[in-house]
């Protein structure tokens, strides 16, 4: 019981905060990147495409190693494992969110944009007040599903030494020598959280699907 409590506290302190902070930072950046990807200025669009494709083709653990190495080289100070994991997860999710936001934005009719411009809004205002609110609603299920994947991926930070739940379980198991017990509890905890959340997302999806949608 004591052990399970310390596993849960590791989950809350590391996995949950990593996920929430990374998602909160990645979303606004991804919105900007998505518009960059759709930009008429070619080099911006190409740069964004390269970023998205590169990050999506690399394992997350590799991204963590890069951040762990590069940031101290630039700033001259060493970076804690937690911060490396957080920055890496954010960079990683920016790439995935960008693609989701881009397809969400593209699903909004271009007439909406033209109409917004016709009312005198600037291009930025049209994006900010007309396109993004509609697109966000449509892509919410995809964003939430991706956030759940980010939550699952937060366990990878154990490889660079963040004392999150998987790491905590390994430590406890080394002491107590009861792998079946502790790893089953670990797996079950994730199963319950992720399954529960995915049910809510699916419910949401069916609700959104019920709205009249422009084909």
């Amino acid at each position, binding site marked *: 019981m004591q052990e399970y409590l310390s596993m849960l506290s590791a989950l809350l302190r590391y996995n949950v905060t990593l996920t929430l902070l990374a998602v909160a930072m990645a979303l606004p950046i991804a919105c900007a990147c998505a518009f960059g990807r759709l930009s008429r200025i070619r080099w911006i669009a190409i740069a964004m495409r390269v970023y998205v*494709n*590169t990050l*999506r*083709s*690399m*394992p997350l*653990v*590799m991204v963590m*190693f*890069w951040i762990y*190495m590069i940031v101290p080289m630039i700033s001259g100070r060493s970076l804690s494992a937690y911060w490396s994991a957080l920055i890496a997860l954010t960079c990683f999710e920016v790439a995935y969110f960008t693609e989701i936001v881009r397809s969400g934005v593209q699903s909004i009719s271009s007439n909406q944009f033209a109409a917004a411009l016709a009312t005198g809004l600037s291009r930025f205002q049209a994006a900010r007040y007309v396109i993004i609110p509609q697109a966000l609603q449509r892509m919410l299920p995809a964003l939430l599903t991706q956030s759940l994947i980010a939550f*699952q*991926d937060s*366990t*990878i930070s*154990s*490889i660079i030494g963040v004392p999150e739940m*998987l790491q905590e*379980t*390994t430590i406890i*198991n080394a002491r107590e020598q009861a*792998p*079946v017990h502790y*790893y*089953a509890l*670990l*797996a079950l905890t*994730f*199963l319950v959280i*992720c*399954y529960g959340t*995915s049910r809510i997302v699916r419910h949401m999806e069916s609700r959104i699907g019920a709205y009249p949608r422009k084909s």
Partner: protein
Amino acid sequence: MVDWSILWQAPNGKTLLEALLLTFQIAAISWVLSLIFGIGVGLLREAPIATLRVVGTVHVEIFRNIPLLVQLFFVYFIFPRILPASAKHVLFDYGWEIVASIITLSLYSSAKIAELVKSGFNTIGAGLRMAAASSGLTWWQSQRHIFLNLLLRTIAPGLASEFVTIFKGSSLAMAVGVAETTYVTRQLGTETFQWLPVNVYASAVYLFCAWGIAGVMLLVEKRIAIPGRIGE
């Protein structure tokens, strides 16, 4: 001082090559197994018997909702306890950490491939199923002769990205001590402190392979595309 030569100096070149081959080996075996499991479970979810459908759904939900790394530790620690002694012997000789990685990657991806299969069936549509049934084919015959072919062609794009995911996922095998590319480059970095060459090499391996897989699958998709479908 950045010294790129550590990548090909005497023992390192061979070690890295062996690690690369191991990465390929793990990915390739997991691709085949996950495709077989995935299609099997996907068919279970379409089976005419309710119990089988439940089994398929439970499989998908379990393996989709537990992180890959947690599954790996679970399999690594717990499978040997339920295996008979003789099987254990064979597996441990081959390298249990490699086998555990392959089993985990295959099961994890099979759940996602089963989901693809399900959405593939939705794309193909109920009309064809009814047509197959009314022509007198049994459930199994219609799956075998009509749907499997169409299905594979429909889900090919999804399979391509799943293959890339498996390839990337093989890097997590380092956590249980498999000497694949990520693990070996880590070790080399710790020994020599040449982190830049080492990171560049490992990233290049994953990038080029991911792009290679995507490129090949794109060619395959074009070859097998179902004529007349929108988006071709």
